[in-house]
């Protein structure tokens, strides 16, 4: 399922608003079915469980909305990356939208770099704080390569295309609106 950038922004805005104005539990749970990578869901459940336990035992349980809110924003980035038609971003924002479209395409690569470096550091029993060095070096190299690719592929005169509305747009907008309403109705 792919939706255009405008629909994607409405959906992300609806859930962000729900996350800010409520405890963020409902909007966070609403994002889970839209995440395709199981490993992300497993890690998030672990993070939530650990943070709730820590808050409970330190008598600061009232901070729990911040845990859900943080992960909600992470999930919204993943969802935007997965479902928004990248070409529609440039149709809405013009050339200024190209870096956003490209950045949204690279999250699987970035997560794979981080996962690999963390694995290698653990396998060699290195201090976990040492992982920042290879990650930064790799990111700088990648940015240089992406810049060259950007220049080699996107030459010529830019022209926008019309935004198309499909049934997917309606489904996602309804899903976002329903989540927003439920967040206010069910005071979790």
């Amino acid at each position, binding site marked *: 399922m792919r939706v255009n950038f405008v629909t994607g922004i409405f959906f992300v805005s609806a859930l962000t608003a729900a996350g800010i104005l409520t405890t963020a539990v409902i909007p966070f749970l609403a994002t889970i079915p839209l995440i395709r990578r199981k490993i992300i869901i497993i890690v998030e459940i672990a993070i939530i469980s650990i943070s709730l336990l820590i808050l409970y035992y330190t008598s600061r349980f009232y901070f729990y909305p911040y845990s859900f809110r943080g992960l909600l924003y992470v999930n919204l980035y993943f969802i935007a990356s997965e479902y928004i038609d*990248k070409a529609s971003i440039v149709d809405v924002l013009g050339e200024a939208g190209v870096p956003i479209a*490209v950045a949204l395409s690279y999250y*699987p*690569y970035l997560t794979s770099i981080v996962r690999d470096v963390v694995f290698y550091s653990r396998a060699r029993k290195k201090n976990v704080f040492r992982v920042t*060095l290879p990650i930064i*070096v790799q990111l700088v190299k990648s940015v240089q390569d992406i810049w060259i690719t*950007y220049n080699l592929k996107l*030459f010529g*005169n830019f022209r*926008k295309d019309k935004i198309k509305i499909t049934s997917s747009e309606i489904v996602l907008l309804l899903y976002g609106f329903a989540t927003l309403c439920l967040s206010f109705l069910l005071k979790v």
Partner: protein
Amino acid sequence: MLVISPKGLTGKIELGENERVALVGRSGSGKTLSIKTALCLNSGLSMIDDKSFCETQDFSIVNAVFQEPNTQILSTSLEEELKLISRYHPVDLELAKQLMGKYFTRDFFKLSDGYKRRYVISSVLSFEPKYVLLDEPFANVDREGTSLIAGIIPRGSLIAEHRIPVIREIVDRAYVIEDGRIEEIKKDKLFDEDFLRKNGLRGFKVDKIDTDKGKELLNVNVRGINLRVREGEIVCLVGRNGSGKTTLIKSLAGKIYAIFQNPDLQFFYETVEREVGDDETMRKLGLYKLRERSPYALSYGEKMRVLIASALASKYKVVALDEPTAGLDGVNLISFVELLGSVLNSKRGVIIATHDEEIINICDKIINLS
């Protein structure tokens, strides 16, 4: 005709519209530099039909594909990427669909290595440039991936590559870069082992390492395979990309010292000295003079040397290497095999995951995962 004269090298490379030309040479000899010169990303001359390409820099005429496919995408599927590119200039969607087949709409990060390369090449071919420059398109790709890529390289291509046996079958002419000089050679030379060895190129099988086998160092059952390694022994894991070679090595973490494919992700310190952490090992492996250097600034062969030195300085008795010869030229390949000799002579065992047929000779035992 595209003519490239990179700054710092003597001679020139000529590429006609109707031919495929090989560009060979040792690591760091100037192959990538020549490609960047053609694109005006580096100093030198790039001429098309006697006119400077750099005045127009029209990438619909000359374009390139570099070695690392992961950083040459603009979207998550070829279909989406071409939609994005079509906002700038025309693309032939039908051609791209033909080249990628059922993988046209597939998420890039779910493709095999062969198809990842095919994705980035198809993306460039879809806007039909007259000349395409390919920098190591076959590096670290198995036999199936190799034929997938070879099948779509068009005429008007310059192919810079270490894997001579693959490209000599598809090119019409060849250039070699040696000691800062670009020289045209007859295609037959790419079949001549003496020539390849003399010029530090790949394309010959390496000799077996003669060592005494000692006691058993590792005996594990992993993923349904009984893996046993003795002192002085090289066990090779072979199989196509995605057959589970890397996963098998990863599952042995903690029992062995594993060296994986991208060296840059495996350096955690700013200098070679801190990375290896042992003066004697550095001296033994010829790294002492590089001890103040950053490991990231070294050549691929030197980086492998640092990683192997770290393995030797560790307490582990079995060292695993995942596709260690992917970026090595002929000289570095021989030096790598000598390095393996040092590892074996230190009463260690080695596991190598590879689909490089040129090093199969050195394996004492082969486990096929396909």
